[in-house]
Structure formats: C-alpha cells, structure tokens
C-alpha cells in the first residue's frame, strides 16, 4: 500500500511540472494574440513580444504600441475604438442658454473617459452617506433619567413583585438599557479611491452625453420685463415667485431638461442669484449646486449635469490625487495629465 501511495504522489508531482502543461506556455500564447491583432495588409513590423515586463516599467496599453495603420484598419471596419486607444477626449464648451458650441478643450482620458466601476462608485456613495449621517440619536440610561433613586416599594411583604428605583429599565418611564448615543458613523475611504470614484462618475456622465460644459457665468436669463418690474418693486412676492416658477418650467421644458427629462443639476463656482433662487422655487425642474457643495452622489443623480468650464476644471484638479504626486524625484514631480487644453478658442466678436 505504501509503495502505491508513493507512486501516486510521484505522478501527481510530475503532473504539476511546467513541462507537462503545454497550455501554460505563456510566450507562445501571448505572441499568437499579438500576431492576430496585427493588420494583415500592414507592412509595419510587429512589436516585439515584451511579455517579461518589469514592475518598474510603466504599463503601456496594448493599443498604444500599435501602428497607425492598425488603428486605421480597426476604424475602417467601423468599430468603436477600445478604451485603451483613447488618450484624450474633447470637451465642447457651450454658451448658455443658447447651447452654441463655442470652444473645444481636450481632457485626458484618465480624467473624463475612465471605465465605469460601479463598485468604486458604490464605495464612494456609501462613504459619503456614512459621513453625512448626523448620528444624533440619544436616549437616557437609568443614570440620566431624572428622579429619586429611592427604592419604590419594600423588598418583602407587599405582595407585589420586587421593585428597585423608578429609573430601572424594567419600569415604564425608566432608562433605556442599551439605547443609542450620539456617535460618528463615518467610515474611511482611501483618498485615491474616492478621487477615482469622482472622475468615474464624471466619465460615466461624459460617455452618456449627460455632461454639458458651459462658458463661465452660468445663470438663468430671466426676461428683461420681469427684471424691470421686480427691480422697480412692482411685483408682490407671490406674483414674483409664481412668474419665476412658470418661467423656469417653460425654459426647462424648451431645453428638454425639465421634470419630464429627469431634472438637471447645475453646478457653478459660486452662488448665482437667479439660478439658485429660480431652482429653489422650481425644484421639480432641477437643482443648482455650488462647487463646494457637490459630491459623487450628486453627480450620479438627475438626468444631466450642467457645469461651468472653470468649475469642471477645478473639480478635476481637486480630485486627481491618484494621478499626481507630491514626491519629487530628481527635482521633478508628477503633475498629472494636462487639464483642459484649448483646441478651439471661443471666437470674440
């Protein structure tokens, strides 16, 4: 029996050896993938199969090593380019409210074209929810309930059950044994993960066409007539509010951004009176937020995000801790991808 056991162990060890596993020949498999990706018509030499990448080498996306001819072939086949191939994405800056495309900026794909990571978004939203929880619930223990601590009835001889103080948790009106006390519900999340979630949320909106970037100075263009009357104090508060409510409703319906289209979040650098008061009155149509007030959950809510150009820039700049470093190597510091490089400048006439 012992001999048989040793034999089977030997067999098992042999089966584990690399030579007996032809399917694990990684170099062969890898190179076959690369060759199949290569354009058939291309005269370009195939890139060397660099499968033994050192950890110190930066990771290169597979497509970036491909020739332009290869890219071309894929594009000609009518396929949408993969995530890896996109390094920069354009951002059109619109005028508001006409929505005329005024200028064009380029953002890094690492800012606005990240793959959707629902798990990371979930982490961020839960983290924010935890941090926002007030945790104010508070009940009194038997030591905090007001009253005398005298024994209510004698221990023996009354015919009643035994009773201690009035504050006993067993008594009606007594303290709570293990009740809630104010506490901090906030949880931790690594800043790099939270920042990635922020940009993932923006990227998600961008890809769906729900991120509309406007020129600076985003505000509601209330009609002159109304402003003249309101400025002259001719409107009562009721009339004024009702007018603004109606105007915002009609305006948002005209844009197809209103209640029917899932509401709209406007994000500005600071408070704009017409915009903020307008949506305070007509909250069913959308909401307006200052940049400091925005979090990841806000970016995921409502039908679309309308944000000012500089607010977007500022937002990304403040949430790229995973792309920048504070450590300088040989006097150089990794500053992250360029933010909002202007491709087409807004014409001034």
């Amino acid at each position, binding site marked *: 029996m012992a001999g048989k056991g040793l034999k089977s162990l030997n067999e098992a060890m042999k089966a584990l050896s690399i030579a007996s596993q032809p399917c694990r020949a990684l170099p062969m498999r890898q190179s076959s993938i690369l060759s199949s990706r290569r354009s058939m018509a291309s005269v370009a030499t195939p890139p060397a199969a660099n499968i033994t990448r050192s950890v110190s080498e930066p990771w290169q996306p597979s497509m970036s090593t491909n020739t332009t001819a290869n890219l071309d072939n894929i594009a000609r086949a009518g396929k949408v380019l993969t995530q890896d191939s996109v390094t920069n994405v354009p951002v059109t800056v619109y005028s508001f409210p006409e929505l005329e495309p005024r200028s064009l900026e380029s953002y890094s794909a690492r800012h606005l074209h990240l793959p959707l990571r629902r798990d990371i978004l979930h982490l961020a939203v839960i983290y924010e929810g935890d941090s926002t929880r007030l945790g104010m619930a508070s009940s009194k223990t038997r030591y905090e309930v007001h009253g005398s601590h005298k024994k209510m009835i004698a221990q023996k001889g009354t015919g009643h059950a035994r009773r201690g103080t009035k504050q006993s948790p067993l008594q009606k009106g007594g303290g709570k044994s293990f009740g809630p006390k104010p506490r*901090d519900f906030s949880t931790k999340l690594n800043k790099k993960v939270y920042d990635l979630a922020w940009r993932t949320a923006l990227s998600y909106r961008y890809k769906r066409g729900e991120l509309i970037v406007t020129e600076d100075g985003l505000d509601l263009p209330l009609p002159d007539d109304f402003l003249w009357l309101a400025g002259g104090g001719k409107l009562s508060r009721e009339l004024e509010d009702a007018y603004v409510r109606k105007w915002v409703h009609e305006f948002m319906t005209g844009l197809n951004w209103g209640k029917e289209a899932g509401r709209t979040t406007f994000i500005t650098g600071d408070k704009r009176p017409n915009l903020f008061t307008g949506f305070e009155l007509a909250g069913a149509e959308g909401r307006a937020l200052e940049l400091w007030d925005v979090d990841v959950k806000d970016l995921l809510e409502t039908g679309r995000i309308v944000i000012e150009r500089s607010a977007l820039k500022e937002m990304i700049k403040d949430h790229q801790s995973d792309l920048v470093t504070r450590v300088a190597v040989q006097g150089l510091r990794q500053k992250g991808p360029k933010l909002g490089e202007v491709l087409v400048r807004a014409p001034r006439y």
Partner: protein
Amino acid sequence: MRRIPRIPSTASALCSSSSPVASTSAVPLRTLRAQAADSSSACQSCNFSTQISATHNRVWQNILQTQRRCASTVSETTPDAPVAAAAAAAEIATEPALTLEQQRKRRRGGFVETQRTINLVLPGEPTKASAPEKIRDPNYEPAASGAGLQEIGGISDWWNKPENFRDGGKQFEYQGFAAQEKITDPRLLKVILRRALVEGLALKKFGANPQNPADIAAIIGNGDHWQRTVSVEMCRGEDGELALKKDSDLQKVWILMRNAADKAHYTREWTAEVGRLRRVGEHEQANQLLQEGKKLGYRFGSEEGSRVKLKVEEAIELRKSWNNDWKEATIRDPIVKFYAAKRIQKMTGHLLSDGKLTSIQTVANFMDALVTPPKPKKLAEQIEQNSILPELPNVKVYPRRVTPVDKEKMVGRWKVIQKELQKRELPVLGTGNVGKYVELKWLGSKQ
C-alpha cells in the same frame, strides 16, 4: 465630527450677512473669483458679490437678497397685494436708474429711453369694501361668515392666464442655437452631413483666423450653395483621414462661407438698425433704410436662410454627385468633428454629445450617429415601432397597465357602475379609508 473632505468654501459664506465669516486662506475658487473680479458687484447690505456680467440679473438678485437672505422686515410683514378687480390696461413702468454701461449703450444708440412698455399685465390695486357701519342701506345685512359668498379675483394663477401676457406668451419660448425643427429624414441627413464635413474641414483650416468678420461657424445660415458645397470631391487622405481631393476646393468652399457669413452679418446689423430707428420714432428714416436693404436683397428680421430649405428630391439628386469612397475615411480630428457637429446642430437640430463624438471614428459612424433614432424610453414605444405585435389581430399593446376600471370602460359598463356607487354613497375608487376586518388580525390571519 468628521465630515466628507470637501473644498473649503469662501463662496458659501459670501451672502450670510448675519454671520460674516472671514475667508479662509485656502481659496479653491480663486481662479473663478479672479476672473470675476472685473465684473463683480457687491451688495452693500449683505456683502455678496457675484461674477455675473449682465446688469439686469443683479437687479433681481438685489431684490431677492434683501427679501430672502437678509430677511427684510418690510417684505416679511407687508401683505401681498391680494385681489385685482381688473387688469391694468397698459402698465408703464418707469425705468430704474441706469447703470453706467447702459447709459453708454444708450448714448451710442443716440437716444435715451425713459419709458418702457412691459409685456406683462399686472393686477390693479386692491379695492376695499366699505365698513358695515358706514353703509346706509337699511336692507344691508353683513354676513357672519365667508361661507357662500361669491369670490372675485385672486392672483394665485395670475400667470396661467394668457391674457396677462401682451406678447402672447412669446417670452416663454426657448430659442437656442440649434434649428427649431429637428430633421430626421435620413435622405436629407446624409446630404447635410456631407455639407457639414466639407465646411468642417474648411473651418478647421481658416475658421480660427481673427480677421474673420464674425464667428463664421455660428453665423452662416443653412440656405444656399448646396450644390457647390456638397459636390466637392472628398477622399481618404494618406493617413486614411477624410480630406478634399483638391486643396483649391477648400478655398472655394471657404469663399462661399465667407460670403454667406457677410450677408448674414449685415442682415443682422441692418435689422437691428431699422428696429432701433423705429423704437426712437424716426419712422421715415427707418422705412428708407428698410427699402434700401430690400433692394440689396436682405430680408428683414431673418438671417440668411435660417432653415434648411432642401427638399428630399433635391437631396436624392445631390446624392448622385458622389460615390461611397468617402464613407470609409476616418475622422479622428476632434477639431473637424467639433465644427461639423456645430454645423449639424445649426442645420438639423441634432446635438451630438462629446461622448458620441469621441466614439465616432469614421464617416459611416457619423452617419449612423445622426440617422439612428433615439432609443425609445418605454417598452410600449419600442414595441409600437419595431415589432409586428401591434399588427397581429389577437394582440393589443397598451402603454400602461390595464386596470379593472379600464376593463369596465372597454365594455361600456364603467359609467353605470360609477352612477350606482354614487347613488349608494360608496367610494368610486379605492376603499374610502375602510380597512380590512380587524378580526382577521385577532385571528392571526395573514390575509
């Protein structure tokens, strides 16, 4: 207690006049505020500043600030003007004090406006009934309560009445850059896309020139030059990118665009000038200018060809002037895509988002993005459009759940049921706050 690490705000403290918080050293919005510095204004009462450049916005801002944020006692205690007997026939509001900028504008225009007709009709002053003791009519008996008295006026739905807008509600119409009517016919869209791409290539080369008389991509209309623009030969360039076969064609297209832009630009200026003269009251001069412009071929009030006049037959005819080679060309240049998308927005009303433009890599992609209708929002819509189900004789498709009431309506029994229920004073819909038998609960039934 710990909170989400957010940007420290100076802006948030700007208008809290009750607690004027000093700004912190870390100013995340400093760029925004620096840009706003030249155009910002400050409300003295609440120390609020903003970067809005338009003067009129501040007027409302100031009012609301004093009313809402600074909690002015006047606005809180003064009751609103409640009832209007009749709408004022013509409300003339005296103009509030002009800002310097406005004054300068007016001076340039050569006149100063002192009165202004407002397109909104306001309720008149409320009238008060005289006190009961002052009424001498012996038959008069004051009512003990308001029940049963006739109600007159009220301003709760003042702005829902069309007669209260002198412009017929025009002030609520949204007018954007995009064409008002969306073009969805694929035959037209194909021709329009070709034109947009030709113009996009031209704009990429010449559009950013500061010597251009106007923003040509924005101002040119959608009217003429279809044949001359669209029939330009396009091909795949050396790198596979879309290009014009002859460089001279690009120049020709650009000249066409320049001329169209000039015409649109002058039409706009001429219309504005005629309008201004009319407002001032110099009708003779206005008419003279109008006639002069008409002789030169301008059309009052309309920019050059603001709507696409292309007909389907023309589009089919134009379509014959090119082959399909250009469809295989790639368009990876974001600037060409930007200009093309801008022209498409103006001509067809389609707003192509950045996300879509990023995924567009070839002309064929572009065509698909434009022609493919948006995904239906409801399942019923989708079935209606792309299914044989509605055509089947034994299948009916409803946009929502078929309720018991719907079923009764279908057989024409609902009105009768309603009548009988009302006769017995029973609730027509629902249970009328009558819950389940409480005994069921006692019995521990799960029903």
